[in-house]
């Protein structure tokens, strides 16, 4: 088997034990490649546990800029005896294995179609460090040293990064240098060069390496959010933590007082309740959670819909149903969020496709919520939220103002502007509201989830009820042109086939489209970025004979929404579904779409359901 030879285009995977401190060394590896100008797609795969279970870090080095997961491993850094066998299996024929050769292993533990690279990491480190925790930690940076030599990483760049990383804890810098050098020097002296190389390039540009949760939290800060009520849950916890971090950095006044508030609530019901209370009183407020939290928030979301109160919920989706796979990624809360709560309800959702959009939508969600006075879901995913993505830098227009929607002030009321809480004054079905305490005699009203008339008075009259419910439908229509529009990429050639997708599928889809094209398969592509869908989405469907809908769930939830809201014939939408909890890959998409096209399956309408 010929060893794989590739420059700036391969996959390295690190197999470690949770809690062993490998994350920072592995992240360092990815960042070195980035600093060398070569794009990287990196993903942590971790267990729902604190210490002792297997964890992996997968780095795709791709000069071409493909940032989705590729599938297959070219170089495995196998540091976890527990998963050794499975890890070895994943290496592509001709690939490489780097392992800790301090303890001899029987030949039967290896494969003969790959290149085996041993480095006595434990020994090297033991010789220089004595504290057990240090030994554990520095072993990680030591294998980065080995890799630096093997792959041609620039030592200076590594050292520069280490220096930045440990700024403030300066006494850690030298030992890290030493551990790195131990590995690098050992490799230089003992290991023959391999076929994989990283070569300096210029494909990174001004892009940043950012996590979606962190970005969304920063977006919330720029979007004027003053209050976060939350309850910890993987994979959304880091969003609240980042909000805390950025607020502490950017929202303290001169006396050290906070222009923000963060409350860790007792549960998700209390979180959304607080958000609704604050939204009602005129503060921009949000909560962040994952599937189980959304299930619990159902009642309040319906309240927000019917009583028309702004709220923002970041749903960082994980593998469902139930507790499911808390540390795996999915796009499977769509149906629940779209129609959350009993009775007839509909809720807007935004689907950021990368951390940059997480930032943008993280801000825009608050304008939408305030303007439409309803709950806006920002549908993040673990794959975006908790992974660092190479993404466009965050941008903000300094002239941009917060759009607080239709709020009557003391002055308006004094001037005699009439106020009826649920009246459609402007013909867009969006009513006016007042904040509590606005005016001594005008503008007060009573908010309730029970049926009410245009002036917010309790009413059991059928006409009052239907009038309100119909206005809410008209408001929904207004929304369609206010939410982020889809992004359409035309194929190079005219084609009857299209593909619709959303969120974290973006990089894999970009790669797949390119590959399919090279096989002569042309697809126009539309990335949905919001619900309700704008007309462009349905125009796109109308303009194609068949449209693949690629999503990361079992039941084709996006397809369901398209059919339900657009009156589309389901047979024209062909589902491509990936839902085992790992991020979708270009390979999967290419294979599935190619097979479906070949089988002509999509074209033949199922007999039963014409």
């Amino acid at each position, binding site marked *: 088997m010929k060893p794989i030879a590739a420059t700036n285009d391969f996959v390295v995977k690190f197999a470690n034990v949770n809690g062993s401190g490998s994350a920072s060394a592995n992240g360092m590896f990815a960042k070195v490649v980035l600093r060398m100008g070569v794009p990287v797609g990196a993903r942590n795969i971790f267990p729902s546990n604190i210490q002792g279970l297997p964890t992996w870090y997968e780095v795709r080095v791709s000069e071409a800029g493909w940032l989705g997961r590729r599938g297959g491993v070219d170089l495995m850094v196998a540091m976890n005896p527990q998963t050794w066998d499975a890890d070895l299996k994943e290496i592509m024929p001709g690939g490489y294995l780097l392992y800790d050769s301090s303890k001899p292993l029987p030949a039967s533990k290896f494969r003969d179609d790959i290149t085996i690279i041993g480095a006595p990491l434990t020994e090297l480190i033991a010789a220089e460090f004595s504290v057990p925790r240090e030994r554990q930690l520095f072993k990680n940076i030591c294998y980065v040293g080995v890799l630096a030599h093997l792959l041609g990483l620039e030592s200076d760049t590594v050292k520069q990064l280490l220096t930045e990383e440990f700024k403030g804890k300066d006494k850690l810098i030298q030992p890290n240098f030493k551990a790195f050098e131990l590995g690098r020097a050992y490799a230089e002296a003992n290991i023959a060069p391999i076929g994989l190389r990283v070569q300096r390039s210029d494909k990174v540009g001004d892009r940043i390496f950012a996590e979606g949760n962190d970005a969304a939290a920063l977006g919330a800060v720029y979007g004027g959010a003053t*209050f976060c009520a939350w309850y910890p849950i993987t994979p959304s916890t880091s969003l609240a933590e980042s909000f805390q971090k950025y607020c502490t950095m950017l929202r303290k006044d001169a006396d050290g007082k906070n222009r923000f508030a963060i409350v860790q609530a007792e549960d998700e*019901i209390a979180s959304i309740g607080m958000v609704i209370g604050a939204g009602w*009183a005129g503060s921009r407020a949000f909560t962040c959670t994952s599937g189980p939290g959304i299930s619990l928030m159902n009642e309040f979301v319906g309240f927000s819909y019917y009583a028309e109160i702004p709220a923002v919920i970041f749903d960082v989706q994980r593998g469902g149903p139930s507790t499911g796979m808390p540390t795996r990624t999915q796009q499977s809360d769509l149906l629940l969020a779209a129609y959350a709560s009993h009775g007839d309800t509909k809720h807007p959702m935004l689907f950021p496709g990368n951390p940059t959009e997480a930032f943008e939508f993280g801000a825009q969600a608050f304008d939408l919520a305030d303007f439409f006075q309803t709950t806006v879901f920002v549908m993040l995913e673990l794959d975006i939220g908790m992974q660092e993505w190479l993404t466009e830098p965050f941008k903000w227009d300094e002239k941009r103002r917060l759009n607080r929607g239709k709020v009557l002030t003391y002055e308006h009321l004094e001037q005699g502007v009439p106020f009826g809480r649920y009246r459609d004054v402007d013909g867009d079905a969006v009513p006016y509201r007042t904040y509590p305490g606005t005016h001594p005699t005008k503008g*007060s*009203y009573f908010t309730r989830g029970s049926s009410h008339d245009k002036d917010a008075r309790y009413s059991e009259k059928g006409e009052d009820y239907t009038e309100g419910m119909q206005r809410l439908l008209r408001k929904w229509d207004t929304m369609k042109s206010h939410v982020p529009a889809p992004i359409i990429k035309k194929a190079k050639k005219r084609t009857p086939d299209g593909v619709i997708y959303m969120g974290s599928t973006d990089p894999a889809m970009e790669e797949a489209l390119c590959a399919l094209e090279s096989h002569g398969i042309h697809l126009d592509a539309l990335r949905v970025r919001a619900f309700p869908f704008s007309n462009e989405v349905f125009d796109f469907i109308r303009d194609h004979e068949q449209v693949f809908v690629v999503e990361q769930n079992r039941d084709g939830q996006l397809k369901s929404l398209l059919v339900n809201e657009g009156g589309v014939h389901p047979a024209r939408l062909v589902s491509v579904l990936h839902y085992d909890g790992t991020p979708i890959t270009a390979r999967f998409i290419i294979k599935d779409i190619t097979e479906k096209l070949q089988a002509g399956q999509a074209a033949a309408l199922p007999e039963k359901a014409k």
Partner: protein
Amino acid sequence: MTYLAKPPLHHPSLERNAVGFTRRDYEGRISTLCAGCGHDSISAAIIQACFEIDLEPHRLAKFSGIGCSSKTPDYFVSPAHGFNAVHGRMPSVLTGANIAAKDLIYLGVSGDGDSASIGLGQFCHAVRRGVNMTYICENNGVYGLTKGQFSATSDKGSKAKKGAENKDSPIDLVMLALQLGATYVGRSFSGDKTQLVPLIKGALSHKGTSFIDVISPCVAFNNHVGSTKSFDYVREHNEAVNRMDVISPRAPIRADYKPGELKEVVQHDGSILRLRKLEHDYDATDRNAALGYLARKATEGEIVTGLLYVDPEASDLHDGLNTVDCQLNKLTDQELIPPLSALEKINASLR
């Protein structure tokens, strides 16, 4: 925020308070509760208290859950914004609003079903956070609106109208509030306006979490013999530990009582709680003693009423959160949106 007082549309004979409002300005829509329901008396006491402490009516914010009791905020102080939340979840909504607009006076009204059953978690957690509010539980020992099931405050052995006996241990919200750090705790009876009005006044003037449990008989479903929440039962077992007057910060201080008999507590806003002891060794500023006393009396079947505990030095949730003085809902774009330079620095740190 102060505004001109309400234009004087009212009958001139109606007395005005210091901020220029008449008692009628504190009224609400017509109650739809049963004739004789205890809850209506509590609404009347709230109206009286708001009037007497010279609260501009729109500076009140009213919250409730679901239940007959929770309907009442529609029946008092119409110029105030009101919020009827979902069942059992009023505390969280009130907390959120309070975080957004801290200068208003927060009043939460709930029932025993709303607070002690579905809402127990939120009740306890709002109390332990020290949300600056007055929380009144209109406690009738049943679910009124759903027609007479036992609530969690029903005493063990208490009988339902149709005869069933309650087998579960009761939840005493006063004990919980004390234990979880409420800084103003009282109990009263809807039928005792003289006791109730000052208790509410003191609570509304208190900074921190005030909780008042008001036994409020349900004439439709829980006012029969065998119920421990009937008018008759409460009258017989009511044991007031003190009587209170609330003296506004502006009122001249008179000292016409003998020392010892009286205790004066000065609250954060300058108002004075003047307590006349009825139970001579009851000290309303000793939390642990209060807990012990109440536990003992509960075992004896007595309903202890009065101001049970107060900590005039209390801090509240905003102190813990270290928020700015300006209400969060009034911060301007400039105060909220960080400069572009900050964003550029963050971008740089992520390369």
